[in-house]
């Protein structure tokens, strides 16, 4: 608990949480986020289509934006469920508890959703400046990662709880870069998988379908956007788990749980040493 957490260890722990300890919650998170990601793809695709005349389609853009934001509560619920599973697993409780104890207090959910919506509003407000994008992305993730710890309603309290996650900027920066690279790698891998699948079907069944080739080509904008959505879906659970670990570490340090754990370990070590000494003494007296 007390040693400094490195990026490698953080990623290992996140991968372990997602892959081994919380597979059900990971699946739930992906399923809940899926409609939101698809709506984002739809929005971006339409936006690119109407590009030059975009501002003349204000009402249409608002309706697309409305649908995307309407899918956020479900997406946030999935993310918060995964974060809750991570917080249970990281608190030292049994992994089976982390799997079985579904359900997030609705107060915590609403307070976290508010922070997530503020982050969603921050994307168009300041996220277009390149240097602010990491901040907004991290804040959006922290809104989900801190959801299990949201206790007080209000205008500022939920935002403050989420903002406290910024206490480890180096780790956050490392995680952000790793997640970004992870998304790019996932996009390439998905593209290759689709191409290999197409080639396998063509060689196995001996047909050449130009229509499918066009659909699954890099020139198809919608396909590329869907690849990115898939990559984000694949990386998202690791991102949330990583942020949950950072948040949990920060809280343990701030609340003294870290120190309490250390003292308990010291006590156990002292008991062990005492037992060993007693064993040596009895052996000497027997000799």
């Amino acid at each position, binding site marked *: 608990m007390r040693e400094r957490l490195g990026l490698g260890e953080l990623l290992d722990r996140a991968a372990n949480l997602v892959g081994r300890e919380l597979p059900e919650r990971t699946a739930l998170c992906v399923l809940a986020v899926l409609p939101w990601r698809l709506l984002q793809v739809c929005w971006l695709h339409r936006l690119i289509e109407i*590009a*030059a005349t*975009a501002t003349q389609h204000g009402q249409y853009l608002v309706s697309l*934006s409305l649908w995307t*934001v309407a899918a956020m509560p479900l997406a946030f619920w999935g993310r918060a469920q995964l974060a809750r599973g991570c917080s249970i697993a990281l608190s030292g409780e049994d992994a089976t508890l982390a799997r079985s104890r579904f359900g997030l207090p609705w107060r915590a959910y609403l307070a976290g959703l508010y922070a997530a919506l*503020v982050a969603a509003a921050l994307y168009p407000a300041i996220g277009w400046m390149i240097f602010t994008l990491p901040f907004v992305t991290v804040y959006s993730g922290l809104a989900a990662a801190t959801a299990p710890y949201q206790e007080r309603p209000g205008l500022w309290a939920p935002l403050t709880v989420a903002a406290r996650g910024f206490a480890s900027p180096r780790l956050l920066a490392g995680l952000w870069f790793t997640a970004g690279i992870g998304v790019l790698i996932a996009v390439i891998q998905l593209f290759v998988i689709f191409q290999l699948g197409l080639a396998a079907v063509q060689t196995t069944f001996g047909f050449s379908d130009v229509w499918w080739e066009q659909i699954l080509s890099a020139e198809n904008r919608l396909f590329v956007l869907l690849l990115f959505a898939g990559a984000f879906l694949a990386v998202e659970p690791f991102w949330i788990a990583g942020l949950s670990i950072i948040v949990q570490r920060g809280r343990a340090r701030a609340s003294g749980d870290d120190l309490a754990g250390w003292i308990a370990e010291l006590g156990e070590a002292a008991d062990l040493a005492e037992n060993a000494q007693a064993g040596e003494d009895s052996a000497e007296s027997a000799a």
Partner: protein
Amino acid sequence: MISTLKSSGARTCAYHSDRPAHALCVSCRTPLCRGCATPWEGIFLCASCLAARRTAAERRGSFWGWAKLALGIAAAAALAVFLGAWMSGLWAELLAAAGS
């Protein structure tokens, strides 16, 4: 701080009979040892009275807290919708103009 046990006849803590009483709970007048007496806004309280006051304070704050949160959710959602539509439209047009 205020109601230490100088004037009280109680000698031991109501919860720990082996510990000397240090203060009285201002609310229920229970003698408390150093471990049980919690100073709160300049007065000593026992755990149950402190919890009761805290709950009352939370209840008082909760209505406005929830009202503010509801308002915040509605405002943030509206802002995300309209700002998102406006900024993305603007950017799409600017990028298209730059591309052509």
